[in-house]
């Protein structure tokens, strides 16, 4: 994947990763803060995500509204992403304009204003964002699954936050979160693209070096107690399609079993993408058992690399005329099969080839690489990304069997049913042609 990564840590604790790639005249710049919804206390759920929104509301140097115009005028794209484990900001710019991105992120690391009137207008925007998600049955089901699976750990709430907190959050709550966590010693900065490393590092030193390190709060960590029994949730809402979602507790991304679980993901539900391309899942076991048997209309399985133990999730849409009971029984039979019988060498070889292809796809563009390097450094080291294919290739059939036996224990699962209510009746207005 071209040049190797150079890692530096500035005196103020800012971690810097540089990966020069001179194939196209663009650079992706990403600043990740090691704070996400996993660090949020009850009463302030959603604060990380809302702070992310406020970071686009201006600083004294770049007042509200000017940043969007500046980045767009220079032909750049920018956005941000709040996840359970982090909050990250990025700009991908023409290479000769990247200095603007460096200056924006250095400036808003300390100077974001959080004007009260901006907080007020953003409240309704955030609530609207949540309401938009609520229009999806799978949002409601996922929220209930996480809430049941994590009784203690903050993975229990959605990144967007609970409505009660979105209605009561204050400007001080938001600004306090910003002041506590937006410090250079809590950040990872990544540049990938068409630049000279020495000049880039010097510019980063000049812009970010003077920002003082801060005293970080003790990490808010409430480990989830071991789950010793299946948990079940039901969501009954309007709709006409039933969904089944099951989450099994699995370890964090640095656990030695993680790559065996990645093979299980590939074999059961199809490989997870790494940005840049995907592979279909019509030959995976769950597709054969649930979709080809005409019980489900679609099925997905997903494993997410996380800082703390999270979930291996399986989601399926039940076909019209079939039942949740049938779907759950068929799914459980497949899970039991993979716990009690080895996968084939051919299945393992396919998973490895798929990982190699997906990794190659991810190296086509600079934005995807800056994303993966940043999140992997947050997991512990950027090398997690660079060694992904090698570590997955080292997994054996026996490793997969052992991981399946251990983690697909029924006592460690949370099962959710989305039960559509009503007769699926929907009505369409007939006032076509009326004046507004």
């Amino acid at each position, binding site marked *: 994947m071209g040049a190797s990564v150079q890692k530096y840590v500035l005196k103020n604790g800012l971690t810097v990763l540089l990966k020069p790639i001179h194939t196209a005249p663009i650079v992706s710049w990403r600043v990740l803060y090691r704070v996400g919804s996993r660090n949020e206390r009850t009463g302030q759920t959603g604060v990380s995500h809302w702070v992310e929104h406020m970071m686009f509301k201006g600083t004294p140097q770049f007042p509200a509204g000017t940043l969007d115009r500046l980045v767009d005028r220079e032909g750049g794209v920018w956005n941000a992403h709040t996840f359970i484990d982090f909050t990250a900001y990025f700009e991908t710019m023409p290479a000769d304009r990247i200095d603007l991105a460096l200056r924006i992120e250095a400036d808003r690391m300390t100077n974001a204003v959080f004007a009260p009137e901006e907080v007020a207008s953003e409240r309704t925007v955030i609530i*609207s964002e949540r309401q938009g998600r609520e229009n999806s*049955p799978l949002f409601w089901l996922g929220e209930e699954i996480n809430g049941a699976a994590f009784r203690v750990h903050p993975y229990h709430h959605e990144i967007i936050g609970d409505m009660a907190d979105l209605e009561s959050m204050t400007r001080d709550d938001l600004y306090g979160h910003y002041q506590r966590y937006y410090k250079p010693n809590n950040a990872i900065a990544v540049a990938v693209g068409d630049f000279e490393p020495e000049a880039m590092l010097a510019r980063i030193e000049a812009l970010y070096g003077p920002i003082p390190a801060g005293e970080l709060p003790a990490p808010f960590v409430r480990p989830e107690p071991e789950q010793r029994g299946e948990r079940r949730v039901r969501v009954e809402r309007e709709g006409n399609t039933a969904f089944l979602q099951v989450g099994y507790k699995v370890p964090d991304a640095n656990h030695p079993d993680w790559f065996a679980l990645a093979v299980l993901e590939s074999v059961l539900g199809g490989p997870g993408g790494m940005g840049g*391309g995907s592979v279909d899942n019509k030959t995976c076991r769950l597709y054969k058992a649930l979709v080809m048997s005409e019980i489900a209309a679609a099925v997905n399985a997903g494993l997410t690399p996380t800082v703390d133990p999270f979930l291996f999730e399986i989601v399926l849409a039940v076909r*019209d005329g079939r039942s949740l009971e049938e779907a759950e029984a068929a799914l459980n039979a497949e899970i039991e099969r993979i716990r009690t019988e080895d996968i084939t060498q051919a299945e393992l070889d396919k998973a490895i080839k798929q990982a190699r292809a997906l990794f190659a796809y991810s190296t086509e563009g600079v934005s995807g690489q800056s994303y993966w390097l940043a999140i992997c450094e947050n997991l512990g080291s950027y090398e997690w990304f660079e060694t992904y294919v090698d570590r997955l290739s080292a997994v054996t059939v026996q490793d997969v069997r052992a991981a399946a036996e251990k983690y697909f224990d029924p006592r460690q699962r949370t099962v959710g049913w989305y039960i559509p209510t009503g007769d699926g009746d929907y009505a369409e207005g007939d006032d076509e042609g009326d004046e507004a």
Partner: protein
Amino acid sequence: MNNRVNPIPGPDDIARRELANGLVVLARENFNAQSVVLTGLLRTGAIFDTPQTLGLADFGTEALLYGTANRSFEDIHETLEGLGADLEISAGVSSTGFGGKALAEDLGVLLDVLQDALRYPAFPADHVERLRGEYMTSLQMQQHDTRYRAGEAFRALAYPESHPYHYSSDGTLETIPALGRDLLVDYHRRTFGPRDAIVVVVGAVPAEAALDAVEAALGGWTNPDQPPRPAIPPAPALAEVRQTGVVVPGKTQSDLVLGVPGPGRRDPEFHAARLVNNVLGLFGMMGRLGKTVREAQGLAYYSYSLVEGESGPGPWRVMAGVNPANVGRAVESILAEIDRITREPVSEEDLADNKANFTGRLPLQLENNEGVASAILRMERYGLGLDYLRTYAATINALTADDLLAAAQKYFKPGAYALAVAGPDGK
């Protein structure tokens, strides 16, 4: 390996070959990643559906990868997934697109599966019926999707029944069950062929070798019955306000679509319309709409506008997701901003900023093989010339504020638009 190439594809680095059967192949090399992308189109699609067979093109095209004369469903997908490759074929209105991705070493296999699916689909009855069930479940889910429902209702309002854009190319819960296998076979036999088809290959394969590989896979394909290239008719301008509400029970947010039939990709106002639309609903976090509807009033999480610019008069529309109680205020704000772009020329600053945005972001749109392949496909499809991207900045920079005003005025007339709202109370 760091091979710097001109980031903007042009005639000197795009290889092009017209095959004897009328298919055009284009290729561009990129050895910076070990992958290859394949994209292209055939000249068939939902334009051949009738009101009674709505969804035939979409359903029939999806079934192409469910079994061929040479490969079973399982063979097709074991072949693709075993390589970590991906291939999709999907119907549009006047074209049917395909796209695939693989490691460069597997391009030949990817092309072989593609030609097999395009030329020799078997439509095996058992798999077609399974697909039909999945398709019906998907249609039912869409009935509870407010964005989908608003979009479909908008099309039905904005385009007359005589126009293909009036209809849902997905089909309906009534039409899909009636599409027997014989109809799928007939649709394929009647309309699939290589004439005017385009295939683009971009990636770690020598360009000439890519052209040869495509020719070997598809050069022997003929269909004497292939109809002339379908053309999408113009759409009449709206003369009044047309409005509808779709009730989707149990939802907490309403989605709205407001707009008119817009310019086609080849219309002279296309670039001016796109640029003024950028001012209206995209530039600087969703343009003026974002500023008024989202930022100033906090009415919506999203509020933006698009000029589709399709083979025909695709919609020029604003989309927003708002609390049901705020729909009226949001519509009022959107109409005020549309009114403004039809009355006031954009400022010199806005014009300069938006031009810089259009021209400056070009390299970003060509960041990966998909972006390059899509750009080459568009150049060939719309006859823009292979130097189109290289002269793009000059084209954009020649536009004036008066050009933008004229484009807005041509499409948006006072008191003439279509508005569809889907939400818990249909308004």
